[in-house]
């Protein structure tokens, strides 16, 4: 079996004095879509932020594309091919939609061109001169994802893309992720909505109290529903 | 302001026995000092020490950085000088005039400054005090660049001749101690506790229902009045009031004194004032300009010595030992 694109071992992380991650182990293989499931506050977002490097107080190992990422400064992780879409989306209000879209520099070949992106997201093209935050929540989520797609990133870290969005938009996002999967994108997704996740993910990790407590393939999902209902308190 | 400022945490607690002893020793030392050191120098230190402690009330305990405190200090110097020289008031009333004037200025500047928060507030104090500077430059009663000279010290309570250096010294010392006592009482009162909570987390204080603006304004006026007390005293000590006293450089100096001594400590600014005044005296005779040295000290302090002398003391092992003793 080839080495996973992303391999995390015994990842511990701290916010100041507070110990937030207690040893996360996970793998994401090229082309896979892996989802981290778990209740609020268990460390899913912290895990993503630790992997991309926003949280600096970390220990353990993070290997991406064969390279050790722990010592890489934050502004270099993108150059290695990691793209990050935060929970709050982070659309800049002082930039237009198009400026937002073209802000992250292209770091590798294989990213979508602006034309391709506008084809996938026609309403972004319509609004491209508007200030970024004048878009609806769903459109902002599309924009936040689209700008990473332009860069040629190999791994997409997506934090709660469907949070707070209407079912129709959620469906649209699911379609977008399917398109990305077809193009071979590797995705690490954090989601509380596991019904959504079950439609796009290949594998799942369940996180609790800063550790991975379970992992399974999507095929095993039906058998896990009772356990998940308990663990996620949904 | 947030708690990222290196303010020495000051919890309300009764004085340790050790601290009480140290304070008594300090007061005794101050009482004996004029027999060993030049009284004018000592009085200068006491005036600036009071000025710095007044400033610290606003910065270290309420969390407001005023970059225009010279307006209160120098303004009171002018008011007192004028009252004593032109109106013939006795020194105690002259000082009262200075304090009242400074408090009034504090009310106006404070009211405008607290319309904004944080760094904006500081800029406002700077600009308004500069406005006052220009007013002093042009107003007839200040005599512009010459300042008010030959201010008579007069007779305290009608019979104590303040022209005598020792009498003047003990007058200044008493006023200084009274001012420090007042500050200490305020800091440890419920009012002072609320001020500190505003410094720690203003939004939380607001959500707790405190009328934060009123507390801030009150602190401003108090700080201005006490700075005015120091300024009025200074006018009598040196017997003149000049534009230097209301300049922004003076505002900067008091910040430096407090920073060097320890923001948020009760006695820190006293040591800061002593150090800065001594340095000023030392460099007055040397070729090196004082502003160059002051500027460098400022930069170094901000980079590596933010807690100030007394702050470092409390944070050091000696200080921690004292804390532990207190908890026993």
């Amino acid at each position, binding site marked *: 079996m080839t080495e996973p694109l992303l391999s995390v071992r015994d990842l511990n992380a701290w916010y100041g004095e507070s110990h937030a991650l207690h040893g996360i182990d996970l793998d994401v293989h090229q082309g896979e879509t892996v989802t981290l499931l778990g209740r609020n506050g268990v460390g899913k977002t912290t895990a993503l932020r630790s992997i991309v490097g926003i949280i600096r107080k970390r220990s353990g190992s993070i290997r991406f594309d064969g390279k050790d990422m722990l010592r890489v400064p934050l502004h270099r992780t993108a150059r290695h091919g990691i793209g990050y879409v935060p929970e709050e989306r982070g659309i800049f209000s*002082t930039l237009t939609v198009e400026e937002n879209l073209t802000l992250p520099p292209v770091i590798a070949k294989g990213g979508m061109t602006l034309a391709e992106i506008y084809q996938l997201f026609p309403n972004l093209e319509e609004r491209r001169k508007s200030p970024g935050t004048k878009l609806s929540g769903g459109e902002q989520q599309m924009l936040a994802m689209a700008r990473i797609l332009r860069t040629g990133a190999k791994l997409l870290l997506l934090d709660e893309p469907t949070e707070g969005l209407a079912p129709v938009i959620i469906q649209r996002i699911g379609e977008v992720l399917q398109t990305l999967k077809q193009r071979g994108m590797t995705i690490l997704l954090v989601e509380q909505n596991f019904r959504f996740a079950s439609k796009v993910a290949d594998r799942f990790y369940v996180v609790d109290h800063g550790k991975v407590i379970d992992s399974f393939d999507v095929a095993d999902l039906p058998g896990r529903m009772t356990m998940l209902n308990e663990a996620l308190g949904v | 302001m947030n708690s990222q400022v290196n303010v020495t945490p000051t919890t309300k607690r009764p004085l340790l026995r050790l601290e009480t002893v140290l304070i008594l020793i300090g007061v005794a030392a101050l009482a004996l000092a004029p027999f060993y050191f030049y009284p004018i120098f000592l009085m200068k230190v006491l005036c600036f020490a009071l000025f710095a402690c007044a400033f610290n009330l606003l910065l270290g305990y309420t969390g407001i950085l005023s970059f225009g405190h010279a307006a209160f200090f120098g303004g009171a110097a002018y008011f007192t000088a004028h009252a004593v020289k032109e109106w013939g008031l006795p020194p105690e009333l002259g000082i009262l005039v200075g304090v009242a004037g400074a408090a009034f200025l504090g009310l106006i500047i404070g009211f405008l400054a607290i319309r*904004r928060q944080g760094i904006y507030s500081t800029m406002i104090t700077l600009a308004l005090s500069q406005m006052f500077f220009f007013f002093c430059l042009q107003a007839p009663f200040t005599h512009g660049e010459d300042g008010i000279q030959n201010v008579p010290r007069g007779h305290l309570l009608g019979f104590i001749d303040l022209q005598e250096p020792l009498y003047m010294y003990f007058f200044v010392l008493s006023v200084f101690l009274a001012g420090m006592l007042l500050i200490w009482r305020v800091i440890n009162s419920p009012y002072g506790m609320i001020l500190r909570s505003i410094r720690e987390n203003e939004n939380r204080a607001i959500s707790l229902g405190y009328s934060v603006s009123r507390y801030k304004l009150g602190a401003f006026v108090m700080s201005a009045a006490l700075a005015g007390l120091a300024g009025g005293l200074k006018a009598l000590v040196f017997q003149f009031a000049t534009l230097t006293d209301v300049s922004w450089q003076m505002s900067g100096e008091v910040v430096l004194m407090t920073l060097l001594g320890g923001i948020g400590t009760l006695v820190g600014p006293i040591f800061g004032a002593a150090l800065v005044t001594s340095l000023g005296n030392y460099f007055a005779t040397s070729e090196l300009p004082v*502003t160059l040295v002051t500027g460098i000290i400022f930069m170094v302090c901000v980079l590596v010595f933010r807690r100030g002398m007394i702050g470092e003391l409390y944070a050091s092992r000696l200080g921690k030992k004292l804390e532990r003793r207190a908890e026993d």
Partner: protein
Amino acid sequence: MTTIFDVPIQAFLGQLLIGLINGSFYAMLSLGLAIIFGMLKIINFAHGAQYMIGAFAGYLLLATLGIGYWPALILAPIIVGLCSAVIERLALSRLYNLDHLYSLLFTFGLALALEGAFRYFYGSSGQPYAVPKELAGGYNLGFMFLPKYRAWVVLASLVICIASWLLIEKTKLGAYLRAATENPTLVRTFGINVPLLLTFTYGMGAALAGLAGMLAAPIYQVSPLMGSNLIIVVFAVVVVGGMGSILGAIITGYMLGILEGLTKVFYPEASNIVIFVIMAIMLLVRPAGLMGRDA
């Protein structure tokens, strides 16, 4: 002789011109301050000193290397910008995650030290700097005499302000700056070296101050005190214009310069405080400033 409100028209226009020139400097300096404040969230007290050093750089380039006005116009800002960028890198950047009061105090100390150093070497009085011969003389417009250099200053400052505004609002680099102002961490995840961007911004702001100093040299004397007298007025301009707003800084700078000039005609005693009075009024009526965003 024609008069306007009982003032001879020559005097009126003369003061208006002086006001416009002062306004040009207020605009350029508050522009630099607003850029630095917007990105770094620090009040650059050393801005006045950087202005002063720009002028001195021009003076020294001429006095020691014989380099004249036009090359100095490019060299002086670069010198000031580079030195300031170094200071930012080595010292100032360590203070960003602390309370803003420390960076204010640091730049204040820097201003004092720089002013003190120059005063030590050059004394408090000014050194003269000649108007370049291409810009000597003036135009006789009939109702007033317009010195060429003054006109040049106003024109140059307009160009500089507009160019800066375009750089920030319309270019890619400007987009990076604007985004980094809003959310520096996220911008770093995109692969942009935000700390370097901050250094560049501080250097650029300082260079703008240095350029203003270079323009000022032939008008005001080159003196170590020229910055400190100016800087507090510029602070007031920035407060009135809205502290993060570049357009606000530019417009307010010109407006207040002209207003100051007009005040000098009709009520000269108030001319140095009129800006502060307006600032006080603005604070009562609209604390965010003319174009400020946060309140």
